[in-house]
């Protein structure tokens, strides 16, 4: 007998709005080949804001649909907001004069939107099918986006490396999911918690392979090798999206998995703690020698992914609030830094090079001050969002047994190393400019909006964190 599955359209309204927006962008692009790309990206931004409006009534509600396979609850809501924020800023940065979009703005905007849909599905998925579909929707679109700067060799290289290693990671994920299904007899995460309680080789093997797949997407060491090349090669706006949206969506999955499956006993998560400590070391040490800001932010992102795992330490109370807070801080400071790179070069890739920042403090003091703010926040200096986030993470980890303490120590040591990395960038801005410094006089209004959004976020979360914490 075929059972009908009732679909509650309210629950998936944000996804529906984004799907409609993506299709609308494609149709508009098809009908008027001469439409300026700003129009297409503008439609995308309006759609993203409309999806946010559709999310407002869902706030604080615990709803599921598709027979419980997709949830819109207080857990997924903040991740969805971060995803839509990232989409909006990435589309805004794509409007800039020299931004790369593969000379096909319709497909480019639609792919960014479809990526975000994958992220929304991931944040709400409560079964393995949802996780797999969301992840693949996110990844497949990003493989193409990584290559949209394709006359540039590095962009082609980024796309090829990403698709090969990403598919390999998906292979681990599928095999792991199959074993998890075998151990639990069901694909729902709730059923898996019984299998986790019972243990057994099937569950342990399945979880290990699943974790490899997830760690790859999160760029946790030692599965991070693709990250610097893909971040460097992808167009600037895509890199900004990748850095923030993929981390937000994947942490939503990891956190839901940890809380639902290992809520009663976190001892099986030790491999994750080890990956976190490795990431903090590899990310911060790897960033030291970088001279390309996109590459530097890639290594920084590896370290920050390691920090974020601390929020899950011991799967304790308040972990999700800490995770969301640090992810929000991470989103504001990274999007802000990428927006500054886009601002001074009008979207040009050349300005990802550290040499473009020599003497910036004298040429453009306002821009340099904002860049300094974002890097101080990445380093975790008081009065910035990064500082409060790290304090919350330390508090979370210290209460979580010996592994928590080990991770807390790694965070402190990592932060000390990262001071050198981030102050190097700030130092460059105060160094005297050399004769062949590239011009950095971009001044587009749209990039100023993105920079301002990042700066306001970093300062507000840094000075009055209660604004966000009271709602988590």
């Amino acid at each position, binding site marked *: 007998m075929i059972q009908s599955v009732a679909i509650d359209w309210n629950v998936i309204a944000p996804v529906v709005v984004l799907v409609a927006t993506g299709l609308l962008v494609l149709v508009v692009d098809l009908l008027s080949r001469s439409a300026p790309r700003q129009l297409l990206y503008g439609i995308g931004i309006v759609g993203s804001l409309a999806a946010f409006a559709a999310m407002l009534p869902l706030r604080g509600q615990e709803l599921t649909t598709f027979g419980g396979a997709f949830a819109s609850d207080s857990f997924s809501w903040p991740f969805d907001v971060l995803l839509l924020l990232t989409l909006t800023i990435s589309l805004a940065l794509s409007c800039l004069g020299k931004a790369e979009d593969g000379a096909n703005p319709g497909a480019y905007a639609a792919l960014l939107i479809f990526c975000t849909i994958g992220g929304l599905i991931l944040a709400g998925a409560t079964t*393995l*099918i949802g996780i*797999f*579909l969301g992840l*693949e929707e996110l990844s*497949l679109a990003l*493989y*193409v986006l990584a*290559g949209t700067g*394709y006359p540039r*060799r*590095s962009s*082609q*290289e*980024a*796309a*090829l*490396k990403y*698709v*090969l290693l990403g*598919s*390999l990671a*998906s*292979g*681990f994920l*599928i*095999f792991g*999911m*199959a*074993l998890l*299904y*075998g151990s639990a*007899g*069901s*694909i729902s995460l709730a059923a898996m918690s019984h299998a986790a309680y019972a243990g057994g080789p099937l569950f342990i093997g399945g979880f290990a392979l699943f974790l490899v797949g997830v760690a790859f997407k999160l760029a946790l060491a030692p599965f991070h090798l693709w990250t*610097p*090349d893909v971040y*460097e*090669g992808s167009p600037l706006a895509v890199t900004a999206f990748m850095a923030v949206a993929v981390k937000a969506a994947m942490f939503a999955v990891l956190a839901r998995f940890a809380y639902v499956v290992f809520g009663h006993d976190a001892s099986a998560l030790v491999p994750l703690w080890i990956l976190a400590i490795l990431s903090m070391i590899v990310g911060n040490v790897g960033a030291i*020698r*970088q001279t390309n800001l996109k*590459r530097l932010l890639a290594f920084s992102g590896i370290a920050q992914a390691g920090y974020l795992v601390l929020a899950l330490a011991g799967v304790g109370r308040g972990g999700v609030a800490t995770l969301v807070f640090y992810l929000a801080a991470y989103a504001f400071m990274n999007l802000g830094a990428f927006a500054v790179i886009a601002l001074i070069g009008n979207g040009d890739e050349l300005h990802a090079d550290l040499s473009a920042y020599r003497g910036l403090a004298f040429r453009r003091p306002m821009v340099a001050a904002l860049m300094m703010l974002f890097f101080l926040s990445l380093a975790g200096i008081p009065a910035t969002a990064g500082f409060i986030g790290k304090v919350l993470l330390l508090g979370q980890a210290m209460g979580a047994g010996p592994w928590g303490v080990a991770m807390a120590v790694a965070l402190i040591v990592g932060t000390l190393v990262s001071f050198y990395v981030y102050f190097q960038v700030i130092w460059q801005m105060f160094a005297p400019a050399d004769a062949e410094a590239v011009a950095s006089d971009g001044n587009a209004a749209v990039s100023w909006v993105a920079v301002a959004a990042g700066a306001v976020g970093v300062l507000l979360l840094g000075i009055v964190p209660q604004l966000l914490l009271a709602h988590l």
Partner: protein
Amino acid sequence: MPQVPLADYLILATVLFVIGLVGFLVRRNPITMLMAIELMWNAGNLVFAAFARNFGDMTGQVFVFIVITVAAAEAAISLAIVVMVFRHREDVDVDDISVMRG
């Protein structure tokens, strides 16, 4: 009709998975590497189908269909990317594709 025990399916799937992984690691042609990845994905499919049959549960089989569909999309995208790279150079060998270092 004699039943093939579940363990045999799992052993076969594991062998396929390892062959795929080794193939990915030793081959240097991206198309061959993609074929090796397909082998790994299908090893997962085999495990899903074997457990679905063992449990008498359709979910695993539905999962297989979904994986096959996504694999088709993934193959289309990855081959397109290989073609894009191939157009800009004569030979495709992943060791030569390394403008970026560090």
